[in-house]
């Protein structure tokens, strides 16, 4: 089916390029020489910061190659995806059909990613995911032309369970927003935690993106679990951390979480965050030469400190670079291109990682503990952790 649709769009593209929509503000660009890379990232709204970091990271990786991909110049195209799922298809098509990009890099928001995934499957364009962890992208809806350089939603939390049990917390309450990312994070936590011998006393949730936690905190206090595991991000995360401390639970019932709980919000959360233990595939304070070098250069290049999103963007760049070099910049040679990307070993600031059969990173997950506004790495929760890729059939 998708191949048939592919053929259709191709033929349509031929008709299209033969004629030019002069009535419309399309800048007709010369085909050929340059590799056309399209960023579909949030440049406005809640995730704007993440979009910027990802783009910076990506550009950095490419600039390390002298700004070339397999020897070819690059032309960048940008679309603000607004983190608005209904516009996902439209925006992706802007890059694929109008700008005729060879590579689509995006995005952050899972719902929008579903839109990109649709376009990627229908048009066969090479799609690189720098953040969104929605499972379907590398499971039931996986595709040979879709690669993820970040994580699957359940990956960080899958490693969390064992950490908690090892620290003697066998009865836990789980709390998150009731939305896809939350559910998928829970899946990982549940399997990891129960496998390690822990029991989940209760699963709490509140509507996304509500931030009135008090009722649930009260319930947690009443349930008296050994520990609490959670998955929040952004402004909500900052508020949850503060409320958790303010409710006097901090210090009585240890708080664990997916690493995103403490990414980019530590300034906002303040001392309330101290001691929180999270699991993630990266930490700013990761003490390796590779990471130090990366952080130094990034800071020099963009006059700001990189975060996990910058790293993911950077790795997305590295992944593409490897592929492009393997085919000498001829991205139309898809078979070879995909083959090399599947086999890629990415020497990332987060540590070396490889690509799973379903095109999701097989990577180490670190245990981090917040210590005066920093995620200190206190160990490795899981080595070379892979996502199951359940239901993925590459066509």
């Amino acid at each position, binding site marked *: *089916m998708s191949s*048939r*649709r592919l053929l*259709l*769009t191709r033929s*349509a*593209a031929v*008709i*299209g*390029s033969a*004629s*030019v*929509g*002069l*009535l*419309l*503000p*399309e800048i007709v660009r010369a085909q050929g020489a340059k590799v056309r890379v399209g960023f579909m990232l949030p*440049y*406005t709204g809640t995730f704007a910061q993440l979009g910027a970091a990802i783009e910076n990271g990506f550009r950095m990786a490419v600039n390390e190659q002298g700004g070339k991909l397999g020897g070819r110049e690059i032309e960048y195209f940008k*679309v*603000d995806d607004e983190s*608005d*799922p*209904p516009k*996902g*298809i*439209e925006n992706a*098509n*802007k890059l694929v*059909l*109008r700008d005729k990009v060879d590579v689509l890099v995006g995005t952050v928001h*899972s*719902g929008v990613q*579903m*839109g990109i995934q*649709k376009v990627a499957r*229908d048009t066969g364009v090479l799609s690189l995911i720098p953040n969104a962890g*929605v499972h*379907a992208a590398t499971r039931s*809806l996986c595709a040979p032309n879709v690669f993820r350089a970040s994580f699957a939603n359940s990956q960080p939390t899958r490693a969390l369970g064992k950490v908690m049990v090892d620290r003697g917390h066998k009865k836990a309450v789980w709390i998150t927003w*009731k*939305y*896809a*990312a939350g*559910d998928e994070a829970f899946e990982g936590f549940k399997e990891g935690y129960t496998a390690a011998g822990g029991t989940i006393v209760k699963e709490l949730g509140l*509507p*996304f993106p509500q931030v009135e936690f008090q009722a649930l905190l009260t319930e947690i206090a009443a349930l008296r679990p050994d520990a609490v595991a959670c998955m929040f991000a952004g402004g909500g995360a900052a508020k949850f951390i503060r409320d958790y401390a303010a409710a006097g639970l901090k210090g009585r019932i240890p708080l664990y979480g997916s690493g995103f709980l403490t990414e980019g919000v530590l300034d906002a959360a303040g001392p309330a965050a101290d001691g929180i233990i999270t699991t993630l595939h990266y930490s700013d304070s990761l003490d390796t030469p590779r990471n130090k070098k990366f952080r130094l250069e990034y800071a020099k290049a963009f006059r700001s400190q990189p975060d996990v999103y910058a790293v993911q963007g950077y790795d997305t760049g590295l992944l593409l670079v490897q592929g492009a070099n393997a085919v000498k910049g001829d991205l139309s040679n898809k078979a070879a291109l995909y083959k090399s990307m599947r086999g890629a070993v990415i020497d990332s600031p987060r540590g070396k990682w490889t690509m799973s059969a379903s095109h999701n990173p097989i990577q180490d997950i670190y245990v981090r503990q917040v210590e005066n506004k920093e995620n200190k790495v206190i160990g490795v929760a899981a080595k070379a952790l892979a996502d199951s890729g359940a239901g993925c059939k590459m066509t």
Partner: protein
Amino acid sequence: MSAQQSNLEVLPTSIKLVLGMGLVALLAFPFVGTPFYTEMVTRMMIMAIFAMSLDLLQGVTGLVSLGHAAYFGLAGYALAFLTPQGEAVSLWWTLPVAVLASGLAALIIGFFVVRTHGIYFIMVTMAFAQMVYYVFFDNRALGGSDGLYVNFKPSAAIFGWVPFDLDSKRTLYYFTLGALLLTYLFLRRLLFSPFGRTLSGIRVNEHRMRAMGYGVFGYKLAAFTVAGALAGLAGYLWGTQTGYINPELMGFHMSAHAIMMVILGGMGNFAGAIVGAFAFEYLLHVFKDLPQVGSINLGKHWQLWMGLFIVLLVTFAPRGILGLFEKFMKRKGTDHE
């Protein structure tokens, strides 16, 4: 009050002419436009149908619904649920079912909201849309926050015979254009039917309508239901084109955009809604593609431009594009005398 403004219900010849030319352009477009723009215009036409459905409430009956997107989304979901994983489903029964589903939802919700007036109506419609939104957003079984795929476009096959194939962008384009024209003609007829006259009577002076014996509740409810069903038609087409349905389709922004389209074009005559939908989508497109000027990327701040545009529009041209156009033609007319 906008209710007091005449709505150009009867379109001046000049506008009819422009619309005619527009239709010709639409008919010819797929042969000159690139696939991307063919898709874009298809989407514009879908939004135009959506906007017209709202105009029946907003422009004709004087009911400002801030939750109209709910019915748009519902039909999309209906299509997603009716389409099996492995194969295409028949257009001929799913389309009516989806439209009826939206209509039914509008009937039920309408029963609550139509009893309210003015600001209440605005806010209550919005709140109900939120309710519907959460039903889908919160339930994994209904797709949750990630939404649902429509894996195959509906098939038009009748007993093996395939009159047309919606998988082709161009076919879908003309199919949508057909739907647009039919909806427009239907609503124009409706506007001048006894039903339509009654609705506009309710907009202008509900109290007098009651004093003359009209049961306004029933009429409003009927209008709300029809509008919901037509929004459903648009939603079904959306689902067919994009193949991806998400709760945000029923969100507050979607509803507000529809309102803007109707105002932008000019209310109460449906032609305005079409013009408005095209203009609005096109403006968004333009604002986002604004070039880098010096160190500032104008395109990045598209929200600012959009916001300013809306504020200026509503401040200076509350009767929308057609209103301006008509005024302009009138002035020209008087100049000649």
